[in-house]
C-alpha cells in the first residue's frame, strides 16, 4: 500500500495455482502474466504474439476463462487458478480431448497459434459447463459452429484458414455431449 519514490521498485508477492500446483513469487508491479509464465516459471507453451490482445496466441485460462496473458497484470493473478497449455495435458502425459481433436483434424500447421486456440476452445467448454450452475446466466446446448467461430474471434491463425480448427472444436463438442 506504499508508493516508493526511490529507483528501486517495490516488489509484490503473488501466490496462485498454476496448472494445479500452488506457486508464489515476488514481482514488479508492471510484470505481465505472459512474462511471468514464460520467464519465471519457464512454461514456453504460451506464445508471445502481437502483445496487443489481437492474436490470442498468449491465451491462458484464469479461473477457467480464456484471457490474453499479454494484457493481464501478473499482480492480479494473486489467488487465481491459472491453466496454461502445459496444464491441459493430463498428469499421465496423455492429451486432453481438445488437443486430440486438433491433432485428428490436422488443425495444426506451424503451430504458433495452437496453444492459444486449444486454451480458447477449452474456455468455451468450461463456459458451457459452468453456465448451468450460475443463476441468471444464459444456458445453451452444445456450442454451434457459429458460436465456436464467434468464440474464437480473438485467436488468429495465419496457416490453416481456420476451417480445420473449427472442425476440430465442433467434433470435440459433439463427442463430449
Amino acid at each position: 500500500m506504499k508508493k516508493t519514490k526511490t529507483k528501486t521498485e517495490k516488489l509484490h508477492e503473488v501466490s496462485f495455482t498454476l496448472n494445479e500446483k500452488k506457486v508464489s513469487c515476488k514481482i514488479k508491479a508492471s510484470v505481465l502474466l505472459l512474462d511471468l509464465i514464460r520467464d519465471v516459471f519457464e512454461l514456453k507453451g504460451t506464445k508471445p504474439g502481437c502483445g496487443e490482445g489481437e492474436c490470442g496466441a498468449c491465451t491462458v485460462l484464469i479461473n477457467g476463462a480464456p484471457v490474453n496473458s499479454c494484457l493481464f497484470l501478473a499482480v492480479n493473478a494473486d489467488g487465481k487458478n491459472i491453466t496454461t497449455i502445459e496444464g491441459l495435458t493430463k498428469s499421465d502425459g496423455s492429451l486432453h480431448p481438445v488437443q486430440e481433436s486438433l491433432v485428428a483434424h490436422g488443425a495444426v500447421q506451424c503451430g504458433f497459434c495452437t496453444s492459444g486456440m486449444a486454451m480458447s476452445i477449452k474456455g468455451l467448454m468450461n463456459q458451457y459447463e459452468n453456465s448451468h450452475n450460475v443463476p441468471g446466466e444464459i444456458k445453451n446446448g452444445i456450442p454451434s459452429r457459429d458460436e465456436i467461430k464467434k468464440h474464437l474471434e480473438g485467436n488468429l491463425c495465419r496457416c490453416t484458414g481456420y476451417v480445420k480448427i473449427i472442425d476440430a472444436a465442433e467434433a470435440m463438442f459433439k463427442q463430449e455431449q
Partner: protein
Amino acid sequence: MNFEIINPGTTKELLAAVKKFQKENFRFGAGCTDFLMELKKNPSEGLTVINLSQVKDAQFNGLKKSVKGLRMGAMLTAHKIVMNEEIKNKYPVLHNAAESLASTQIRQVATVGGNMCTASPSGDIACALASLQADCELLSTTGKIRNVNINSFFAGLRKTVLKKNEILYGISIPANIKSTKNIFSNFIKVGTRRSMECSVVSLAYHIQTDSNGIIIKAGAAIGASAPTIRFAATACDFLIGKKFKNITQKEKEEFAEKVLSYASPITDIRATAGYRKEVLFNISKSIFE
C-alpha cells in the same frame, strides 16, 4: 512500461488510496485492456496505478435487479453482461453492444466502468448505456455518492466529469415501462471487420411500444460520430406517439436527419467524415425496416 501499483482490497481502502494520491500522477486500472496498451506505447513517468481488480465489494463488481431497473457495479465485466439473461431479454442493445466488444478474451476482463471512463466516442457499451439513459454513481473520497445522468457524464474526447477525488462506482439503467409490449432494441456497429473492431460509426437504440404498437419511449445514441457519445434527444422525441410499424419513408428520413444533427464526425484513418455521416443516416433509417 514502469509504474507502481496499489492494490486496495476493500472500498474503504480504495477511497483512502484515492484520497492519498488525488494530487499525484495516478490512474485507475480496471480490466487494463486499453490502459496497458496505452502504457506500452506512452509510458508515464512516476505513475501510480490504483488497481481496482482486487476490491471485494459486490456493489462494485456485481449486478443487481430491482423494481427500478438494473444496477451494474463499475467493475462488472463485458462477459458478465453478455451472459446475463435479464439483459439479453430486456435490454438487447446492451447485450449486443457488449458482445460486439473486442474478443472473447478481452470481454473476460474489460469492464463497464472502464468502457465508460475511457470516454472514447466509439465506446460500445457506453453507447448502449447512453441509449438506455443510464445513471452514473460517482463515489467520492468522503463516501458520498453523486448521481450524474450519462448525458452529462462525458465532458469531451476522453474526458469525463469525474473529479480527482471521485470514482465511477455503479451504473443504473431504468426498467422498461410497465405497459411496454414490444421492444425494438439493437446496437448497430459499422466497421471494416466483424471482430476486434473499433466502430467506424455506431448507433444504439432502445424503443418501447405499447399493446397497440405505439412508441411510448425511445432512446437512441450515436458513437464514433462526435467528440463524445451523444444521445439524440430530438430524434427520440420525434418518435413518441407514432406507430413503429407504420412509420413512413418521410418520417424515417426525418428521424435520420434528427439523429444526424448530433453528429460532427472527423476524418481519420478509419473513415472520412462524409462517409460517417452517410452511414449514420442510412443505419438510422434502417431501424424501422
